[in-house]
């Protein structure tokens, strides 16, 4: 155990001293802080004025001088009422005095409302909200002219209640899009951390230091120490990144904007613990698989091809949980939450959606732990036999033979 700690300590030191590690972590942190500040930057550049300036011209007085009411309606536009010709409007738009204009013109049989922008390439049509604002205002003007009583007015105003329901008994809560994004982040965190184990083992093998190392301590100690060390660095890195994102979101983002994207009530300490547990277990199972493939490589150019089976396996497992998340009550998603290689990408989100009971989580963790023990056994055995082999790249058959032969 003492040697495992010595190996882990050395691995941690090696990792955190690496320039590439320091720079990439710093870049991620800066990107997070900058990312969460983008709304504020835009705010400060546009002088705190988010809404677009819209000039409304009603030359024919269709709205009977009631257009001022538009300013009170929450239309999302900074509305200015005025008079101008098309050419004047063109000049104002070109000079950035306004971003758009509306010209209301009375025609013989109807009223034409022209929505004028500098460029309409990106527009699907006149915005719905704008149309409905004008429709409502016009209806109100006409209704008030009819002199209806309060009751009559209420009777023609629809009083509908729209709700969204499902036939399935289990109901998922939370924003599926956010979960998918977080699932991708968790996948990359686990995957890249685990990949480091392979890369570290390969470096030791290709630099021939392994011969000295393996006479100084046992292969088991090396694999476990390395996995532990890289895992600790990865976990701390993830906590720092998530922590920075959390603090940045809280301190830089408008709380309303934040709540519209992420329901903070879903993020409980229980979920945080579950996520960390699955990160650690997911990391362990993939790190050990990578220890196995990493030990079979003798030349740096073989890294890609030797590691690709693990990479393909990881991606398939990830997609198994990712795509079934859209249908979280399906049997396939339940399978993904129990299958040890996909559980780390799936279970935290079932917990977040309120679909997994404590028993489900415990069963999944037990399966995962048992699988880790099996993978560890196989990985250490093959590592022990493969690290001193500097020959050509090993095939599946060679690896199988190494598993069958005596452990060194």
């Amino acid at each position: 155990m003492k040697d495992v700690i010595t190996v882990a300590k050395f691995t941690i030191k090696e990792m955190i001293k690496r320039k590439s590690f320091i720079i990439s972590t710093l870049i991620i942190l800066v990107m997070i802080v900058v990312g969460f500040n983008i709304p504020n930057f835009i705010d400060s550049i546009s002088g705190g004025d988010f809404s677009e300036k819209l000039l409304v011209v009603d030359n024919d007085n269709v709205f009977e001088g009631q257009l001022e009411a538009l300013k009170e309606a929450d239309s999302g536009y900074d509305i200015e009422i005025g008079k101008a010709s098309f050419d004047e409007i063109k000049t104002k738009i070109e000079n950035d005095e306004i971003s758009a204009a509306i010209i209301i013109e009375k025609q013989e049989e109807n009223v034409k409302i022209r929505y004028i922008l500098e460029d309409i390439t990106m527009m699907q049509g006149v915005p719905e909200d704008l149309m409905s604002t004008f429709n409502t205002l016009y209806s109100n003007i006409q209704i008030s002219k009819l002199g209806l009583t309060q009751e009559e007015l209420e009777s023609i105003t629809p009083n509908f209640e729209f709700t969204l329901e499902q036939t399935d008994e289990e109901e998922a809560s939370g924003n599926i899009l956010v979960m998918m994004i977080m699932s991708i982040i968790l996948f990359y965190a686990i995957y890249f951390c685990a990949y480091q184990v392979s890369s570290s083992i390969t470096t030791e093998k290709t630099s021939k230091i392994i011969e000295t190392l393996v006479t100084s301590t046992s292969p088991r100690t090396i694999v476990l120490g390395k996995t532990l060390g890289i895992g600790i660095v990865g976990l701390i890195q993830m906590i720092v990144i998530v922590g920075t994102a959390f603090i940045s979101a809280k301190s830089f983002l408008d709380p309303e904007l934040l709540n519209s994207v992420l329901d903070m009530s879903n993020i409980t300490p229980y979920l945080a613990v579950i996520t960390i547990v699955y990160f650690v277990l997911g990391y362990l199972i993939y790190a050990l698989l990578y220890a196995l493939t990493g030990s079979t490589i003798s030349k740096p150019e073989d890294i890609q091809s030797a590691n690709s089976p693990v990479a393909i396996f990881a991606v398939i497992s990830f997609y198994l949980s990712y795509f079934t998340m859209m249908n979280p009550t399906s049997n396939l998603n339940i399978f993904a939450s129990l299958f040890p290689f996909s559980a780390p990408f799936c279970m935290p989100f079932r917990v977040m959606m309120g679909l997994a009971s404590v028993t489900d989580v415990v069963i999944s963790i037990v399966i995962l732990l048992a699988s880790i023990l099996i993978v560890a056994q196989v990985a250490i055995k093959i590592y022990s036999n493969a690290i001193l082999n500097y020959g050509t790249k090993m095939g599946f058959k060679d690896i199988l033979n190494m598993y069958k032969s005596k452990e060194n």
Partner: protein
Amino acid sequence: MGLELKNVSKTFAGKIAVDNISLTLNTPGVYGLLGTNGAGKTTTIRMILGIIKKDSGEITWNGKAVDRKSVNFGYLPEERGVYPKTKIFDQLIYFAELKGMKTDDAKNSINKWAKELKVEEYMDMPAEKLSKGNQQKIQFMTAIIHNPELVVLDEPFSGLDPVNTEILKNIIIDLVRNGKYVIMSAHQMPTIEEFCSDILILNKGKTVLKGNLKEIKETYPASRVRIDTDTKIEKYIQELDLKIENEKNNEYVIKITDEEKAHTLLNNVISNGIKVNKFDIMKPTLNDIFIEKVGE
């Protein structure tokens, strides 16, 4: 006491790497393990160190079966390797700690050996900045830093310049003086002759020659005569049907099959009034013996 191998064998994927070899090191000294490339030396060393398991036979150190824990050994592998980006001092501490040393003891030992090997100024540098020879000295340090009882040196002098070779030689002599057991594998036969009292020559995994180097040589008949004269003596050599191996400034190295012919040649030369400055009947070198045993 010491190291003993009894009928040790190892097979890799049906191919015999080491076939039934036995050897004994019962007094401190340097034991020579020789063989061509692929003869089974590294496999033998790895089995002695417990890095790979033997298929059969017995390996004991002080009467106890060896494994990683039971022997305090140091190893300089033939495959040289260092952590390229890590500070020399950090990697030395790492290996010393893995060998069970306390950090303070490790630091003292590193300082002592760095001084002796003249690599003090490199301690704070990453290994990749060091020359190959200096990297090799660092690796030699990892092998001896923890004061091991058994030191295995695989090609310790390959790639070293004469100055550094001398430094290393003196350290090895000191190790033996301090009661250490050293197993040395090398391709330079003069080095082995200089250090080793006992040798074992492997060929294709099998022992082809084993024993005390001096005694082995005694069993071989003289193979050459060196004669230094003041004029040319080709005529006398050809008369006796002998073959010149080398000649430089009237110093001849002549192959002989029996010593009698050498004496006849000397008599013939002297009786013809030629002055002889040097006359030396030579036993075969280890190189000759090696080539005879493993050359095909």
